[in-house]
Structure formats: C-alpha cells, structure tokens
C-alpha cells in the first residue's frame, strides 16, 4: 500500500498526476542564441490527466528582432500563442500527441540601403497584424529526474494558415509558437523543445483508497 500511495514516477500509471512545466530551452536560446537574431521566448504548459490521455495546454510568448534578412530587411515579430491538445504518454516515457494552435502576432520592420555618400536610407515596411491557426504533431520522450521532476525532449511538426494583412509583401518569417517558418499563406516548420515538469502529488489509486 505504501508503494501505491507514494508519488509515482512511472509513466502510464493508472492515476497520473497533473504536470506543470516550462520550456527550459527557450530561455537558454534567448540568452545565447545566434548573434544575428535576438530572441525573447518563454513557454509554460500544464498537462491534465484524462482517462487514458492528457489534456495539454501550452501558452507562450515569442519575439524576434532579426538582423539583416532577405538582403536588406530587418524584421521584428512578437506575439502570444496558445496550444491545446491531447497527449498520450507510454509506459516507457514515449510521448505522442497533437495540438491545435492559435498565435496572434505583429510584424514590423525596416528595409535599408547603404549610403556611403548621402547616408543610409532606411524606411519602415508596412506593419502586419496576423493570426495563425494551425495544428502540430509532437513526438517526445520524458525521463524522471526525481519523484517530482520530469524532463521531456520533444520534436514537433507544425503547419498553420496565416490570416491578416499582407500589404507589405514580406512573407511570414517567424511566427510565435511555431518559430521560423517556410511558406506564405500556409506555413510549416519543425522544432524541438526541452521541458522541465513538476509532477503534482499523484492521486491515490482506487485500490489504495479501499485498502
């Protein structure tokens, strides 16, 4: 009985615990990311156990100030995103799942031409307020660090439709919640994440309650 009541670190248990986590890769990437791009990334998540799966809710903020891209453009993208989906955690720690994604973000920036005689020419590109709605599939693996903490490595594939103004002509470059994207009205991307989870006290199993 003692074993049944103790916090369990096994996966796929009959009475799984709520997991609260943060992406630990994003702050590291924000601090020591590539010199040409300045990122500000933060993400938190909660996993709520259902009957055989977890309800996964992810929220985050992402911002990027790019250095020169597309030959003469500097972009600033920032916004917030929410992902809601379902995950299945196997006995061996294998994680499979999907998320629906909504991302609201703003893109601004400048284009410039070097002016050695008359001075640099710099002009703002039209601001864009965009909404991305998409879907992502995730595949990961999580490992117990202690009875309370789990570490999860995740890979994801995301696709999303972009809604909003396109007057500037500059295609989507960075979408919060998705990252660097390819495509135009329909974008797609791949990404990785490392999440540290805190496992709330597992509920006692039905067997242990009756004991």
């Amino acid at each position: 009985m003692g074993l049944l009541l103790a916090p369990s670190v096994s996966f796929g248990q009959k009475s799984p615990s709520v997991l609260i986590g943060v992406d630990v890769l994003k702050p590291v990437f924000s601090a020591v990311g590539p010199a040409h791009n300045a990122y500000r990334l933060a993400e938190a998540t909660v996993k709520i156990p259902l009957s055989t799966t977890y309800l996964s809710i992810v929220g985050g903020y992402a911002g990027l100030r790019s250095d020169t891209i597309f030959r003469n453009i500097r972009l600033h993208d920032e916004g917030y995103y929410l992902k809601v989906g379902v995950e299945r955690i196997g006995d061996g720690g294998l994680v499979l799942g999907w998320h629906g994604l909504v991302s609201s973000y703003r893109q601004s920036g400048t284009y410039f031409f070097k002016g050695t005689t008359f001075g640099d020419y710099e002009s703002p590109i039209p601001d864009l307020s965009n909404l991305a709605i998409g879907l992502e599939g995730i595949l990961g693996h999580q490992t117990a660090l202690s009875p309370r903490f789990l570490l999860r490595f995740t890979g994801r594939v995301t696709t999303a439709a972009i809604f909003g103004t396109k007057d500037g002509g500059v295609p989507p470059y960075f979408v919060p919640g998705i990252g660097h994207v390819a495509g135009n009205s329909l974008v797609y991307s791949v990404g990785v994440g490392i999440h540290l989870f805190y496992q709330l006290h597992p509920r006692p199993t039905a067997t242990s309650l009756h004991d």
Partner: protein
Amino acid sequence: MRPVFTLLLMAFGLSFALMSCENCGPSREPFLNLSLQLTTPAKIDTIYALDARNPLPKQPVSTSIVTSGIWLELPLNLNANQSRYVFQLNGRRDTVTVFYRRSFAFRNQRCGYVLDLFEPDGIPAKTTQGTVSSVSYWQNRNGSFPGGPQETHIELALRL
C-alpha cells in the same frame, strides 16, 4: 529511363541558370553617369555633392586639360528625389541637379526590397551654366532578359 533523367537534368540546369541570372539591383547608392560635353578645352578643379555626408568617391578624371568630354560616375541620393552636384571647370562654378522618382518594392526573399529610379513628373535635370542634352533612366533588368542584366542608374549628358 535515360531520357527522363536527361530531361530532369536539363530542367534543373535551366532553372538554376535563370535563378542565378536574377538581378536584385543595387543594395547601396546607385550611380549617375554624368557626361560633360565640352565646347572649349577644360579641366575639373573641384567636384562635390550637396547634401552629402561624406566626400564623393574618387573620380577617374584627368587632372590636365581635356578637350572633348568628361565622364563621371556619381552616387545618387536615396534620401531625396534629387541629387545635386557642384563642379568647377576652368574657374567656372556650375550646379547640376538631377531629379527622379524612387521606387522601393519587395520582390522576393532573395532580393528583399528592390530599388528602381524612374523619370519624375517635372523636369528631369537642370544646370546653372550649361544645357541639358539628354537624360535617361535605366531600371533593374534580369540577366535572363534579352540584352543581359542591367543595374538601376541614370545617364545625364550636359553641354558646357
């Protein structure tokens, strides 16, 4: 199987060749090709640009007296719809102004914004001493276009 492979190879080669011929235009100040047609032999004493933050690039002009003509390659001001230059020939000072309409348009991810210069609605150029013989505006043109690639520039001929 072999013809299909050959066709694929040719299509790849053609698309690569066309892609490599794309001319994105200047990423810095384009040039005014200024031609000074002389009626009397002259020598350039001074030349500089008004509104400039830095001196003009060194010009490949003769320091001795020239009899027929002088050709200069001068940067154009992207921060205004005109560029002004002052030069002194045989002690005579002249101010030349060339006008243009700037166009910055996003083309694609490889080129970003592309600059083109067009003829303005008003007069294209003026000079305080001589007369304007001709002005022509040349826009970006890709290498795949008949005639080869072309950079944005303006050609101005003055008779002094």
